[in-house]
């Protein structure tokens, strides 16, 4: 998901509140932040970084609708057209019987669709090497990554900003 040889400035923080405050400080200085990696969700972090709101809800609705239509097609085709069967004295095409199927397929499509969408949009998968700036962000550290090619300020300027915002370590990584 990343172009080769991109330079990132990486700051490591020890505290989530410090990291959140740092994001606000650095952003107000006019620096674009690529991402903050954290062992747990930090309330308000996505808004602070300036990520656009997720559109997964719209995706979910579309997947659900697809599942619902598939269920209608499936039951109508099998029971109404291809091989009508009378079960329990009901008309072969009695839709109340098929509402559980519609419900299940709607949920199934939504759940699978959302999971797959999530993996794709986050660049995750069985063979994909995840972008990990510092493995300690899976344990006890909060890691901020700034894409240097997306920022006008010089590397040294940004580094001093990050340092001043409370980062324990600042380094530059090529990925």
């Amino acid at each position, binding site marked *: 998901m990343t172009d080769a040889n991109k330079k990132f400035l990486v700051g490591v923080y020890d505290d989530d509140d410090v990291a959140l405050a740092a994001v*606000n400080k650095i952003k107000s200085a006019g620096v674009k932040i690529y991402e903050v990696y954290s062992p747990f969700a930090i309330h308000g972090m996505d808004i602070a970084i300036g990520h656009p709101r997720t559109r997964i809800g719209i995706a979910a609705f579309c997947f659900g609708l697809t599942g619902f239509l598939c269920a209608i097609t499936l039951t109508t085709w099998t029971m109404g057209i291809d091989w009508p069967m009378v079960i329990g004295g009901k008309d072969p095409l009695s839709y109340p019987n098929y509402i559980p199927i519609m419900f299940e397929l709607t949920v199934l499509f939504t759940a699978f669709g959302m999971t797959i969408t999530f993996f794709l949009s986050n660049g995750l998968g069985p063979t994909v090497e995840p972008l990990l700036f510092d493995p300690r962000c899976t344990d006890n550290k909060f890691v901020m990554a700034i894409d240097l090619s997306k920022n006008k300020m010089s590397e040294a300027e940004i580094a001093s900003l990050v340092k001043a915002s409370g980062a324990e370590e600042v380094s530059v990584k090529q990925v």
Partner: protein
Amino acid sequence: MGAHHHEVVSVEEQFEFTAESKRNLLIGMGIGAALVLIGAYMLSQGGGHGHEAHGAAGHAAEHAHDHAEHAYHWTQRIISNLWVNSVYFAGISVVGLFFLAYNNLAQAGWSAVFRRIPEAMPAFLPVPAIIILVLAVGFGDKLFHWMHEGIMDPSSPHYDAIIAGKKGFLNKPFYFIRLVLYFGLWYGLWKVLRNLSLQEDEIGGTENYEKAIKFGTAFLLVFGVTSSTSAWDFVMAIDTHWFSTMFGWYTLASWHVAGLATMTLTIVMLKERGYLKAVNESHLHDLGKFCFAFSIFWTYVWFSQFLLIYYANLPEEAIYYRERFSGYGGIYKAPFFINLFLNFVTPFLVLMTRDSKRTPLILKIACWSILVGHYFDFYTNIMPGTVGEHAGFGPVEFGFILLFACAFIWSVSTQLTKGNLIPRNHPMLEESLHHDVA
């Protein structure tokens, strides 16, 4: 800037039940009472249906003892209306306590800021309690098949073996004891929680909160049983031959979502009048989620009950839907589908997106839809068994709705004046003030 920034808002708010509101409510009740009187007069003059046959032959039939128990009298429609509204508003009232109790048990923080609103709702309980008790004791045979004279007496011409088989549960002494128990326990436990909460405003600390968790949990245990049994007693017992194992859940789901809609609507309207400034968009969002989720839950239970009966197609069960779908000249078909539309389709589509749950106007539309819808829910559950083909929508129906709604609002408003509108010393208040679901 940023999500963590919150304006510091005052939690000191005193609700004022203005003279103007009181006057409007009194006018509402006056119109309601007038509608009921006009409707009753029309009904007594045979304005309803089914009285055409009341010539000499009809009169003779009425006096024939065999049919006396089935003879319809126009007062039954009045009684049934009182019953529908009492059951509906009793449910809405008790759900306020239900909401408090499960929030206490879960130690939920987000709801602390508006908990005075559900806290105010159960105060209305004595009104439906008295009406239900008076009707059950005085006019039970007009509502319940199993209360008819001689229905459980093998030597009587009215003997019904199936109903007699239910004597262990459906007998008058036990029934009246249960009614008293329901309202006594609900109202009593509400009083305890209410006093603890009001006292907390003055003394602070966490002691009252801990106690409220315990009493709330006790209520949940009580309500776990009584929500089902009261649903059987108030509604299912009307169609005495019929039964459904889903019914307790179904009625609870109906009451619950109606209660949540009442709460949400009250909160939105209070905010519009400048109260509850500390209630932010995230609170509204979560209340909207509650209404959305429990509308779907109600539909789920409604449909589960229907599907089991539809699929098995046993005559003694299917008759229930037959009566509502095509029985009595099909008069219940419209309420039956209006019910589904207002309680599922509207809230499902209207409250689906994030932004709609944060928009007061849309919340109001959804809540009104739910509230009107669940009136139809109880209407279609009760009326076919009590008045059958004589039901309708006339001045009596609208009048009683107006009377009950105004009385309920009066009761809630009075309660809201009895303490600070925000529980200022609630241990979870700080968390609630910063509630943020992004």
